[in-house]
């Protein structure tokens, strides 16, 4: 019983916060001005507590397991959720149902934790549903906006479809191997046609959540329609969690089918990068722009996965961390500006530097990092991804990936140019940045600079994963 509380510590902590919020909600309730700082503090405590009293082990007959690596991944996700509560403070404060929003968000987070720790396809499926259904409700949170409900609708329908395919895949796997335990599956996989089909069904569900082309179509609509806190959560936390689980499933469960999935990954990685990049070029809405650029980033994450060893795992974990900082900084700036002026177009950002130098610098830093320009952390993230892929000696593949880095540079620079260089008679007025938002943006900015320069960050991740 003691073990239960120590091993499932991360899940327990999130559950405790969920219950606390529930009590506050059904009780007297609290004003947003008081509730938000409380939630932020709880999330910070939750993140810090994640580093202590960790013990590897497994529960419920191997259905749940935890080790150094999974704890690290959960910590990264906790950090991301904490940062979202800071950078999106402007919107959060004004939403009439703040407690519910966090109830949903933390439930999704709980689902992700369970998913990362799952040792069994059934638990994995349940956790996946727990992590996606609340997000659809979160997407609907701009209650007075039609686009928001439309996005939520599209999301829930598409995810139902992908869940169907996933369940189909799981049943095929059970049918051909007679087991759904991660530990005993590898020995049963022989690469028969039915198993390949089942694997592709399973993979498609992951690809859908990760917005891998051609399973990406829901992304831009949902990102654009949802409130910005949901969009940040979807693009950073959801993506990160699914990427981690995909890594675990590929490396530990489908290892015998390595020959199949390495080709699958390479192909989808290239298509995803190219399509994401080409579409990002044409976007005017900043949220749509970031949505497509995050599709392109996912292509890079897939690239590192072709390395089947700890280097690939560490590269992905490091990249997700850096991507968290960079993307949240970009979304955070967009959130601050959108919540006060309602402007969301790249053209509106023209001449932003004249009126809002702080926001402009953070945005520029984030975009440089996303584009992978040294010495920002984004460069190191990309570099580790490419070297991880390079260990497989796939030179053609790396060349195409690196070319895509340059294409992406073009459109990231477009925004930088708009902010710094383009002239605008009527730039946006100076925007007031609240203390929480400022703190969040500064943490993200510092993360972008320091995660690259302090080598122990990568060292730490590598040690944890080895």
């Amino acid at each position, binding site marked *: 019983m003691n073990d239960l509380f120590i091993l499932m510590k991360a899940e327990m902590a999130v559950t405790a916060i969920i219950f606390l919020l529930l009590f506050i909600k059904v009780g007297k309730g609290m004003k947003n001005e008081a509730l938000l700082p409380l939630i932020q503090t709880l999330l910070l405590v939750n993140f810090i507590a994640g580093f202590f009293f960790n013990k590897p082990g497994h529960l419920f007959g191997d259905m749940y397991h935890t080790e150094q690596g999974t704890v690290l991944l959960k910590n990264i996700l906790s950090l991301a959720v904490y940062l979202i509560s800071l950078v999106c403070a402007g919107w959060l404060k004004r939403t009439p149902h703040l407690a519910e929003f966090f109830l949903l968000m933390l439930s999704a987070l709980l689902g992700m934790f369970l998913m990362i720790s799952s040792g069994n396809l059934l638990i994995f499926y349940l956790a996946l549903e727990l992590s996606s259904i609340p997000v659809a409700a979160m997407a609907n949170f701009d209650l007075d906006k039609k686009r928001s409900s439309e996005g939520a609708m599209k999301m829930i329908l598409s995810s139902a479809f992908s869940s169907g395919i996933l369940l189909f895949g799981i049943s095929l796997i059970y049918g051909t191997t007679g087991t759904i335990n991660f530990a005993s599956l590898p020995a049963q996989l022989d690469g028969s046609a039915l198993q390949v089909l089942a694997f592709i069904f399973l993979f*498609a569900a992951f690809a859908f959540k990760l917005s891998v082309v051609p399973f990406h179509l829901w992304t831009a609509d949902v990102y654009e329609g949802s409130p910005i806190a949901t969009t940040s959560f979807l693009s950073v936390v959801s993506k990160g969690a699914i990427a981690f689980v995909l890594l675990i499933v590929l490396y530990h469960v489908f290892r015998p089918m390595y020959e199949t999935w390495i080709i699958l990954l390479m192909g989808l990685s290239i298509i995803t990068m190219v399509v994401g990049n080409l579409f990002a070029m044409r976007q005017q809405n900043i949220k749509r722009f970031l949505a497509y650029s995050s599709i392109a980033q996912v292509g890079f994450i897939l690239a590192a996965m072709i390395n089947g060893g700890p280097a690939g795992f560490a590269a992905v974990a490091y990249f997700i961390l850096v991507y968290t900082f960079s993307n949240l900084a970009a979304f955070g700036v967009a959130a601050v500006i959108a919540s006060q002026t309602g402007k969301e177009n790249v053209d509106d950002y023209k001449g932003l530097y004249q009126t809002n130098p702080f926001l402009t610098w953070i945005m520029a830093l984030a975009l440089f990092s996303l584009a992978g320009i040294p010495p920002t952390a984004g460069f190191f993230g990309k570099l580790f991804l490419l070297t991880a892929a390079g260990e497989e000696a796939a030179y053609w593949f790396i060349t195409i990936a690196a070319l895509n880095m340059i294409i992406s540079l073009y459109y990231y620079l477009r925004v930088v140019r708009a902010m710094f260089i383009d002239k605008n008679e009527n730039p946006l007025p100076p925007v007031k940045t609240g203390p929480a938002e400022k703190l969040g943006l500064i943490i993200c900015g510092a993360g972008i600079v320091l995660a690259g320069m302090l080598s122990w960050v990568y*060292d730490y991740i590598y040690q944890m994963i080895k």
Partner: protein
Amino acid sequence: MDIYGYIKYLLFIPLLPLAAFVLLGLFGKKYAGKYAGIFGTVLMLAATGFAIYTAYSYFTTYSGGSYPRINALSYTWLKFSDTLSIDMGFMVDPISMMMIVVVTLVSLMVHIYSLGYMKGEERFATYYAYLGLFTFSMLGLVLSSNLFQIYIFWELVGVSSFLLIGYYYNKPSAVAACKKAFIVTRFADLGFLIGILILSYTGGTLDFNTLIVNLTTDGSASISSGVAHTFLGASALTWGAALVFIGGAGKSAMFPLHIWLPDAMEGPTPVSALIHAATMVVAGVYLVARMFPIFAITVPAVLEMIGWVGAISAIFAAVIACTQTDIKRVLAYSTMSQIGFMLFALGVSGYGGEAGLGYTASMFHLFTHALFKALLFLGAGAVIHYVHSNEMKDMGGLRKFMPITHITFLVACLAIAGVPPFAGFFSKEEILLAAHHHNPAIYWIAIITSGLTAFYMFRLYFSIFWSKPHHSHHTHSHREGGFAMMLPLILLAFGAAAAGFIPFGKFVSSNGQPLASHFDLQFSILPVGIGLAGIALAALFYFRQNSRPDKASAAFGTLYKSAYHKFYIDELYLFITKKVLFNLVGKPAAWFDRNIVDGMINLTGNATQKVSAGIRKMQSGKVQQYAMYFLGGVILLAIIFIYTRK
């Protein structure tokens, strides 16, 4: 290690400009105001002092044998495995010592000069902050002790030059130019990065010293593994070295990656003197020199390619320079041509002893060129400052109005034309001698280019200072520029006149052992003669205004026209990017987006119209389309993988 006590001061050399950047960038506008320039200059002066002291100590504590290659102040930054780690450190060897002197000295001159040239600019402090950042990056680059570190600084140099070229951000041409420079060099840098990955993978290390040992020792494991892997018929080592060189060629504006350099002249003129004459553009030459043993011993084929790229760039740029009318563009092409000289000097060089003459000559030319080309750019800046135009036709007869600029400019022109005893003569002679011994074809190209160089430089000189009667400028009442602008010109003119007498071979050679430079008077007759002939021809055409230039350009017809249009290389790139890339890639993608994605919406919209107008507004049909894509993707993947399954 007492004799290396001076090394501890090395740290200050890059850190002082960095401090200038940070302080001016953060507080400059508010607190420093017009004193920002003085502040930056004083810090730069200190850095120059440290650099000269360090270099002096390094060369004077030499005690026979080879010059040592010291990896100073090194610490392990990131450890991949027991053998492969990324270190940060300072490389102390003859060429890095020479480079820190060149970079700090030219940067100091530009700092001083800008006090006058940029006075009254609105973003004065920002300008000095950028200068500090650039100088820091460039010093970091030349002092890097491993491939990874050099790459980081390489990119930083790119970013800071992007900022400097785009300094006049309200000028659209400047903005376009900085973007062009950034994107073109990024493509080259991509090659560099892949090259680094390949070389460090085969060599098993990123550290220059170890890498050179691993990749030059005959029969070592690294070499045999590097040769064993092949790709498109060339070994991994060849690919790695060639890709690294492509990175260098991009920064050094070598044919055909040169298109960004002339446009980059949109930046402030002192910036051109710093970036496009003395420092950033020679980074490619420096990179090849830094890894020279690998090129010379292990992959001589790549070295030969480098030689040819250099020679072609040299003559190609010289021909274009003869036709340009914007004085900064003439200087830009002249820079490209001179860097071509440095590169083919490396290309014809061997490793060690007399065979390594080309290496010494190349570094010598890099050194002298930095001095006289910076002088030329700063002089051109003074002229532009005076007449407010870049065009030759607006100048002429300026010698009476700008006596100091006139004399110093003449010194620089004589130096670049290779007239004895000015600096350019000595370094160019050595290059020609090396080419003569190893590759007669390149030697003849170089001789012709020397003649062209003398011609276009004196075309420039006569057009600016003679040509028209001087009273045509009586409207310009102001003086030729303050003390701050004239001092660097005078100092650099002394350098351009006298630097040739430095016995360079004693300090810098391919294997670190002193090389006696010798002189062959007979050999010098032809190049000097050609140079004087070029000057005479220029005098004939441009000393007084006459109709000869027009007749000559008419006689050359197409050649003149295509050279004037820079041989249409820019148009070719435009054609490739606009027509080929946009039409073949961009258009289909846009079409797909418009017709397939949007079309689906319309299509389903029409279908559902019959059902309900309300639902169509929600675009609910789109979701079905998403599901179809989803299913289509799954089925396609399943078919591919099940049927290709072995």
